[in-house]
């Protein structure tokens, strides 16, 4: 990611918050996302451990044909910045005007980034408690739907 991109990301963040809030209210939180946005996590490991010999971390390797990945040192002692963006929208990723596409692929990318970071830092992906003790009710339905996508959505 070049510095211009980083600056633009920063400048557009305020607008993104407003846009995402509106989309959340409208119930279309992840239906559209810019295809050229980098999704980034900071991993508390040096770059040579994040992508040894240029190899992608496991969860990202599964999306290798769909994405571009970069790794670089993070400032100070913060480890590495692992960035990925979609370069080839999947079949399910509907191309729409303005360089946008549907969100499933973006959700998979966010999930892969979160899992890659977790594996690199702790050795495994933390699971939520199973089986759940919670019950499905009509009033809880929106939350249940949100929980199913709780790794793939969010501000990453």
């Amino acid at each position, binding site marked *: 990611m070049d510095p211009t991109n980083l600056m633009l990301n920063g400048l557009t963040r305020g607008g993104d918050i407003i846009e995402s809030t509106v989309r*959340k209210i409208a119930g279309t939180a992840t239906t559209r996302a810019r295809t050229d946005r980098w999704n980034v996590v900071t991993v508390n490991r040096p770059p040579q451990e994040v992508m040894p010999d240029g190899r992608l971390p496991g969860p990202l390797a599964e999306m290798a044909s769909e994405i571009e990945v970069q790794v670089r040192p993070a400032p100070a002692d913060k480890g590495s910045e692992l960035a990925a963006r979609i370069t080839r929208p999947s079949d399910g990723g509907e191309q729409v005007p303005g360089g946008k596409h549907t969100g499933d692929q973006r959700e998979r990318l966010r999930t892969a980034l979160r899992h890659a970071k*977790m594996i690199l*830092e*702790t050795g*495994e*992906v933390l699971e939520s408690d199973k089986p759940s*003790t919670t019950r499905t009710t009509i009033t809880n339905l929106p939350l249940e739907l*949100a*929980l199913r996508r709780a790794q793939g959505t969010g501000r*990453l």
Partner: protein
Amino acid sequence: MKALCWTGVNELSVENDIPDPRIQNRHDAILKVHLSSVCGSDLHQISGYIPAMREGDVIGHEFMGTIVETGPDVQKHKVGDRVVVCSVIACGSCWFCEHQMYSCCDNGNTNPAITEAMWGTHPAGIFGYSHAMGGFKGSHAEYVRVPYADTIAFAIPDGVEDEAALFASDSAPTGWMGADLGGVQPGDIVAVWGCGAVGQMAANSAFLKGAERVIAMDRFDYRLEMMERHIGAEVLNYEQTDVDLELKERTGGRGPDVCIEAVGLESHAPGPQYRYEQVKQQLRIETDRPHAVRDAIMACRKGGTVFVLGVFVGMVDKFPLGAFMNKGLTMRGAQQHGERYIPELLDRIAKGELKTGHLATHRMSLDDGPKGYELFKNKEDGCLRSVFAPNGAASAA
């Protein structure tokens, strides 16, 4: 197994058919729970102010017990160890954990998107504290799964009773953090809003950090009496006096050097303003009632520090930003970074420096869980903390 579950707003139920926890990750342990305490922040969940609760969620996050099973990567603990477990689920490996900001852990929350939408990023997980904080089952149960056991479980020194060690799980490190990160210095005058367990631990910690005087506020005389008797703080009933003027008078007109808020989003205040904000909160026009935070900002001396220990979840109205800015205050807050403090606190409890044993005013079986919360919520029978023994009294001896 048996567990105490949230089943709706102001509804709790003891369920007998909860599946036993099992090792799911290599760093997990399974704990047989000896003691599990109620906490003031549970009341926000029970009352429906914490979003992302689902019917059937097991609640409770302050607990201790014995390890009965370990995952293959658990190194520090073995079956049979008596441990206290931090309420905050933190990995110990991310940048935040390495810098001792455990409640900011990147990896302890399995549902990051919920809090990212609310707060812009996600904090660590917490046991029994809604799906926004990971959806982990709580400790008001016979057994509980403990993720990252090497990082968040701590062996209890011989000679420290279960009931004293229990509060090293949450209230003691929360209070200690308020004094520590609030920057209490020798000779300071410290004001504490709230005389519950966390407020008492904050006051005790402030004295241990060298505070010359601690002045604590509440509206229940029995809590004020406990604070005075066990901790040695000066006390004020805010329904009977003008706290701001009283603090000015007691601090030479300066105001306290450090103000610690240990109340949270359902705070009370005398006068019509309280009812006005209660209505707004119930109509969801504002999510949190910040009376104590406002009072702390107004009372604090110029250049002083306000530390928010009480739990808040969303937006507050009428935040005195002008006072905050023009007085040159420092304001901090956090869920507790317990993993940073628990070993030291267990030592201090063992030495008798940090007094926790008196906090458990009511001890009962898990079957009495709903009653325990009623006593706690309504401040009946001198209840400071109800403590449950899910596996019976014998296991908690």
